[in-house]
């Protein structure tokens, strides 16, 4: 399968998952209130995340222009599928060397640029526009967080709830499995998995998922244990409700706040993990981690190429900071100790 087709498919799956979650949340006033409260407390962080999502969305769907007449020299570039973000930048900006932000000539060789001043953030060591790469990094970051979460959340819920609710032997087995996985140092396990699975977006996300689900599954298991003993579950039993229905109507809805909080916390740690993986040479192509990794050679140049790593770092930092702030707020808002009080 063409890589851009796969990427488009993943994107649509993510969008569908998000839409489903939002649709489900909208039906419940409790979640609607939580959402409103979040918007009230952290409007800036929410706007930042929305902006990233917009950029990522614009970059997610790529298409080719079959009827576009292209010159011989540009065929290779324009014949490839390009996203809306790609189309904002001239397809032919591949320069022979690199330039500083807003420069009108190349640093190495000093020739005039084809787009003088057009590279707002300069170009990297092989002449790629830094702004373009930085914007494209948003999609990669959201894919890392989103796709991995799509793997982690259902798996952890299924395993955690069944272990916690059924208990007994099922729990023994699940607990053993979890403690086995959890006992391996996560970064080493991650490295081992990627080395065996191979490098690539899906592989990295699968590896992150395998190392990441245990934490949530443990939380879910412990919380299910607690919920199972609560009076409202007893009340449902006394009213003749079947066990399966109890899980669906009572246990799962009361776990959702945990899932949302974990998702928010997980997201930033996943994106930061990918940066480390990139530096180890096994990250995802096009990520900010790759740009930072590339800075190792760029920083030793004279004059120093600082703009690449700076813009990647700023982009990374603002996303992570916004997500962390949202996670903090979400944790406060959904804390069961505050849910019980007046709304």
């Amino acid at each position: 399968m063409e890589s851009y087709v796969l990427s488009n498919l993943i994107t649509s799956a993510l969008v569908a998952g998000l839409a489903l979650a939002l649709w489900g949340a909208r039906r419940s006033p409790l979640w609607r209130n939580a959402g409103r409260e979040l918007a009230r407390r952290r409007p800036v962080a929410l706007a930042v995340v929305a902006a990233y999502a917009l950029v990522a969305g614009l970059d997610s769907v790529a298409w080719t222009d079959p009827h576009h007449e292209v010159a011989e020299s540009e065929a290779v570039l324009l014949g490839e599928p390009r996203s809306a973000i790609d189309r904002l930048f001239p397809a032919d900006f591949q320069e022979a060397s690199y330039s500083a932000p807003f420069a009108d000539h190349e640093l190495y060789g000093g020739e005039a640029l084809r787009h003088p001043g057009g590279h707002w953030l300069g170009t990297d060591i092989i002449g790629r526009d830094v702004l373009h790469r930085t914007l494209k990094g948003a999609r990669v970051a959201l894919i890392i967080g989103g796709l991995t979460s799509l793997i982690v959340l259902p798996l952890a819920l299924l395993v955690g709830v069944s272990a916690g609710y059924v208990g007994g032997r099922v729990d023994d087995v699940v607990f053993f499995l979890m403690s086995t996985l959890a006992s391996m140092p996560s970064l080493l396990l991650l490295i081992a998995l990627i080395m065996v699975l191979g490098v690539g977006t899906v592989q990295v996300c699968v590896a992150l998922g395998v190392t990441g689900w245990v934490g949530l599954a443990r939380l879910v298991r412990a919380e299910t244990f607690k919920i199972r003993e609560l009076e409202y579950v007893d009340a449902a039993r006394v009213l003749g409700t079947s066990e399966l229905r109890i899980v669906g109507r009572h246990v799962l809805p009361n776990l959702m706040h945990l899932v949302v909080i974990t998702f928010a916390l997980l997201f930033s740690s996943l994106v930061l993990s990918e940066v480390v993986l990139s530096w180890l040479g096994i990250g995802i192509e096009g990520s900010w981690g790759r740009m930072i990794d590339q800075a190792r050679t760029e920083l030793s140049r004279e004059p120093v190429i600082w703009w690449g790593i700076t813009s990647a770092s700023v982009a990374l930092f603002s996303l992570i900071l916004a997500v962390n702030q949202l996670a903090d707020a979400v944790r406060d808002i959904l804390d069961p100790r505050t849910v019980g009080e007046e709304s």
Partner: protein
Amino acid sequence: MSAGPALLRVEGLETHFPVRTGPLHRVTGAVRAVDGVDLVVEAGKTLALVGESGCGKTTVGRSILGLERPRAGRILFDGVDLLALDRAGFAPYRKRIQMVFQDPAAALDPRMRIREAVAEGMVAFGIGTSRSERTEIVASLLARVKLDPDVMSRYPHQLSGGQRQRVSIARALAVDPELVVCDESVSALDVSIQAQILNLLADLQRERRLAYLFITHDLGVVRHVADRVAVMYLGQVVEEGPVARVFDAPAHPYTEGLLAAAPSLDPDRGPRPVVVRGDVPSPSNPPPGCRFHTRCPHVFARCRVEPPPTFDVDGGMSRCFLREP
């Protein structure tokens, strides 16, 4: 024990909780929460089960509802032993026995609206054919427990404690039970709200000929609601009888002590001397002989070795050698 038709008859009920320790969860002991309890609840009447925390009164109630697995004994409801039934066989009896829990905040799912909470039992037992029909029934039930119908679309945390307890009662009534186990149903409420709920329960009993098993530690409540009372201590019923007789002429030293300890509201009565001293022993290692002998003011040698049998006392029984004929 009584002349009326027994709706519920509990015989020799024993419910123990295994004490599991270590990562391998091996059973190393047992908490003998309920250790040989006999009870009778007559149709349309109220039996109060009274005792201090840890005496096993709640476990009796939970065992009757199938929430605990007793290890011995019989629970005869309408003549059928519930413990001998399998899951499917037990299902129809679920509908006939309901429960109102202690903490109305914990007994209602915080993420479920009042309408769904009250309708939960109806859905399970197929009462009402459509959603709208069930909503109508819910509305009439809420009206019966004196709640505004617009609470239907609210969540439990938006209600006060008393309102939540009314919802719990409406939920139990929804499946039209014959016996309702009230487990400390008014203990968590403020006095002024408690009176509202007690009156409501009394009205419902008259209207629907409900039988109550009223589990409580509050002697004032017992005296007010009960026809008969059973006093529990460390997993056993130590005294049982009509409420007036038990309060006026207690036949067990523990009952005596309990009555003496309860603060009275008579402004002319001065403070009384403390009768029962010391602490309740652990139910995982109850004392030999009479279980009350470690705290009993009348203890004698025989009490320490020989567990007393039950002796008939004026329409009830007592588990004390002093009552030996």
